[in-house]
């Protein structure tokens, strides 16, 4: 791969961070790390991906995959929090338990889920709130992801609303606590549970058992996971075991401490002065990634070249993607796909041009959504201590030869 040559001089041991060391204490933002190679070991049902951890598995999708509207299952990123993940699911015995403030507790088998409820599909982007976290300096807490903690798939399953309707909500029901089967290794470590307010449930929120026409890959939450289109992935609980309906919010670690941003207008703060009030991350902001060409690629002078990539937002839909080849002075419209996958999915874009000058060339991509919100330059994004919601304009530097 060409980009490997380009980064010959950079330290590229598995997952080593090359940036993030020249900590200007003020809090600055730059392009995320983009020089990591896929590992040489493949995980079950996966091709070799950028590997940060085996226990729990943390796998990132390489940039070149972000040219297709649907991310292949075997290249889809993987993110667990706890080391204790069941390695076997008996699909005949598996049930999703619905309990708490319901008129009738349910234990739904996979067969019931597939046969007794209306089956629905939605194409939606799954993105970690900490995707691109390595863009922030000083280094915020958490995994230092490049830009590949995201993917888009066609999900099939059953509306969570339909399931709750069948269970029947009791008076006072207001919150849902969704729990998966991953377990902490130490009994006092908080478990990963996500709380959703019932008002946040629209018809697009489903319990999915299929991804791109196949069973969910084991590492993406087999046999069922929650799909919350437009929302960051910490809410998309994997390998669901139970859903408890409650009347109050429980203040759990992974809701109230991890996966939060400053509760102010800019959702920002400085390392010396953290903002005292926080709120859980929720709807995704507008973002795009160039899948081709990659950093360090060689393009030929005066020959046709095509920039390709994906753009998405929290569900308003993408209006436009613009490309700049002159450092952001002028922008030109890229061609978008038909958008038939819907407003929660990737819109792929392409932009053809002929490089006019030898040497280094910067390609920038900027998405604008239907609300008129557009991606800021990396340097204009303000720091936050969790390194969440980075959506800077993607920049790829190639060489024209």
């Amino acid at each position, binding site marked *: 791969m060409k980009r490997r040559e380009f980064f010959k001089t950079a330290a590229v041991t598995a997952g080593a*961070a090359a940036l993030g*060391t020249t900590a200007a204490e003020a809090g600055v933002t730059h392009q995320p790390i983009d020089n990591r190679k896929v590992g040489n070991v*493949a*995980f079950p*049902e996966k091709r070799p991906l950028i590997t940060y951890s085996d226990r729990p598995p943390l796998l990132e999708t390489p940039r070149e995959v972000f040219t297709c509207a649907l991310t292949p299952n075997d290249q889809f990123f993987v993110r667990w929090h706890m*080391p204790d993940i069941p390695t076997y699911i008996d699909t005949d015995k598996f049930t999703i338990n619905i309990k708490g403030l319901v008129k009738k507790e349910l234990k739904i088998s996979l067969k019931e889920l597939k046969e007794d409820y209306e089956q629905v599909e939605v194409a939606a982007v799954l993105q970690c709130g900490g995707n691109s976290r390595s863009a922030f300096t000083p280094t915020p807490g958490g*995994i*230092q992801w490049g830009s590949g903690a995201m993917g888009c798939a066609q999900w099939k399953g059953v509306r969570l609303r339909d399931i709750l309707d069948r269970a029947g909500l009791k008076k006072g029901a207001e919150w849902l606590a969704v729990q998966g089967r991953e377990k902490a290794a130490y009994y006092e*470590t908080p478990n990963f549970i996500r709380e959703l307010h019932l008002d946040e449930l629209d018809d697009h929120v489903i319990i999915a058992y299929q991804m791109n026409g196949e069973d969910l890959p084991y590492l993406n939450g087999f046999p069922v996971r929650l799909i919350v289109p437009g929302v960051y992935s910490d809410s998309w609980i994997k390998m669901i075991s139970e859903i408890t309906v409650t009347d109050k919010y429980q203040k759990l670690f992974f809701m109230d401490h991890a996966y939060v941003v400053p509760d102010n207008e800019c959702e920002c703060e400085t390392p010396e002065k953290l903002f005292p009030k926080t709120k859980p991350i929720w709807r995704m902001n507008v973002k795009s990634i160039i899948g081709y060409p990659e950093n360090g690629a060689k393009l030929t002078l005066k020959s046709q070249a095509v920039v390709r990539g994906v753009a998405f937002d929290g569900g308003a839909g993408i209006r436009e993607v613009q490309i700049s080849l002159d450092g952001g002075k002028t922008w030109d419209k890229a061609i978008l796909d038909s958008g038939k996958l819907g407003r929660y999915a990737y819109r792929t874009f392409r932009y053809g041009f002929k490089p006019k000058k030898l040497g280094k060339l910067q390609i920038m991509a900027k998405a604008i959504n239907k609300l008129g919100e557009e991606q800021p330059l990396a340097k204009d994004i303000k720091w936050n201590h969790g390194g969440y919601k980075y959506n800077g304009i993607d920049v790829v530097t190639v060489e024209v030869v």
Partner: protein
Amino acid sequence: MKVMKKVLLTALIAATPMMAQVKEKIEVPYIAFPIKMGKGFDVVQANCLMCHSFGYIINQGRQSKKFWEGKVNKMIVHFKAPITDKDKKVIVNYLFKHYGNGKEQ
């Protein structure tokens, strides 16, 4: 057209044995992360592998002493890692020596 067919076929063959694993118990491979050896490593090994791999440490890149101290504190305070004060010192020194950026702060 011929070429296309061939590519598709190989892709299918490659995918089949991987898919089959779900029917059985899956096996997550062990990765030997290139963790540095040195003074205090035994203490790090004893305290830091319970909940996650060494990959988590390597992923952070080179950092200040304050950063590593903060990280170990986070493990103790938020994730309830049972680490003694004595071990904490050894761990922070090890992390700073091998994954440090030379800066105290």
